[in-house]
């Protein structure tokens, strides 16, 4: 890793400087491997179903009723949490409220590690978080915790997450829920 220049400004390792880039359209990323979306969705579901205290972190883009898609996505986030048996901790705004943050009821992009440590979260999904804040939060989580991060991004994805799903809209979230249900059934057989 470089010690001067842009990456040197970051106190945390930066995935892009380790050669990890966001996946091309139609594909997904698992660690540093570009794979089909369905494969990544299965692995994401498996991580959420098998790791401790799985949690979904919905951001402002799904928490607030901006438009019809946001309303639809909110319903799907709720359903996703039911299928995965996951807790929901919202990221309702990005104000750096330190030291007033209550990590049991909110996650803040400026110190997301506090929420993950406090709740002992080992797998999480970021959904509806604006990209620039997701990038900051995912870097901190990647460097500071053992949490398996999954980014469901409606844009180009996030290389700092363990699994990156890009261009995710309501229909993709529905597909993910179906895959999660399948994985859940399969896991019950063992």
């Amino acid at each position: 890793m470089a010690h001067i220049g842009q990456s040197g400004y970051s106190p945390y390792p930066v995935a892009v400087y380790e050669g990890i880039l966001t996946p091309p359209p139609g594909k997904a990323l698992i660690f540093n491997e570009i794979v089909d979306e369905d494969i990544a969705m299965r692995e994401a579901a498996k991580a959420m179903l098998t790791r401790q205290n799985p949690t979904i972190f919905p951001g402002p883009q799904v928490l607030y009723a901006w438009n019809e898609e946001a309303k639809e996505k909110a319903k799907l986030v709720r359903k996703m949490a039911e299928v995965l048996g996951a807790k929901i901790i919202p990221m309702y705004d990005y104000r750096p409220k330190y030291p007033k943050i209550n990590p049991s009821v909110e996650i803040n992009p400026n110190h997301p590690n506090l929420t993950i440590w406090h709740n002992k979260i080992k797998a999480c999904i970021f959904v509806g978080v604006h990209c620039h804040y997701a990038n900051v939060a995912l870097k901190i989580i990647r460097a500071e915790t053992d949490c398996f991060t999954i980014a469901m991004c409606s844009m180009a994805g996030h290389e700092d997450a363990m699994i990156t799903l890009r261009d995710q809209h309501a229909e993709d979230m529905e597909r993910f829920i179906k895959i999660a249900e399948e994985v859940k059934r399969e896991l019950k057989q063992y």
Partner: protein
Amino acid sequence: MSYNIYEINEDLKEFIPKEIVDLQERATWGNPKRGVMDLPYSKELVEEHSLCAGCPESAALRYILASLPNPEDTIIVNSTGCTSLVFPHIALHTVHSLFGNQNAVASGIKRVLEIRFPDKVKDVVVLAGDGATVDIGLDCTLQSFFRQERITTICFDNEVYANTGGQESGLTVKGYVFKMAPKGKQFDKVPMWQLAIDSGCHYVARLTVSSPKRVEQVIKKAIYVAREVGPTYVHLYTPCILEIGLNSDDGLEEMRNRDKERFAFFEYMTPHAEEVINKVKEECLL
């Protein structure tokens, strides 16, 4: 901007803390008649603050935020100082500028907003301390007045650099001694309100924050005039009770005492500004 941004999706509402739900249900968005009288009943835009107990600046911020006629479309630009400790807690768009740059940053924001949202009223309000406004940022402050930028500048004057231990500022009174200014100030206090008038501000006021209703009137006038005419300037006395050796409950008394002398209420407006203010009064918005 759409009011929908405050509307929480029903499906996820149970996971949102009450203070955020209250911002949707009990805040006074979309009501230009909002004011300090709403404070006991409605959700405030600053829930808590990290200033000292009894700090008059916290009262000033509370009254100002309650008085903004258009909070959902107001951008606050602030600078380094005690005030900057509060801005992370405010439920509004705020931009933290470099120390002293606040009026330059606000000018840019205002101009871009006029291009980006030509059909919308967007207010840009600068909130900064005396160091940022009158010492380090005097150049940017006055230049924005000369350029007739349509922004409101509010200076919190505590007459000292309180945040950094008590160095004298341009607004310290002559002869005053502080922890880091043991010889006492050698020069007179800068008459910033007069400089603002001479530099082309269309509405200028000087007051303490001992009277919430008066603060509301002044802030609303300053914002309406800035919207229609040009730069406006409000000079508020918000003493640092710690630096002048007072207790937490002495702030109000200190301001009331200064109301009678160097911070006696003073208001200036140009004929054009007066016209705007009269029009707003006719619309019962003041």
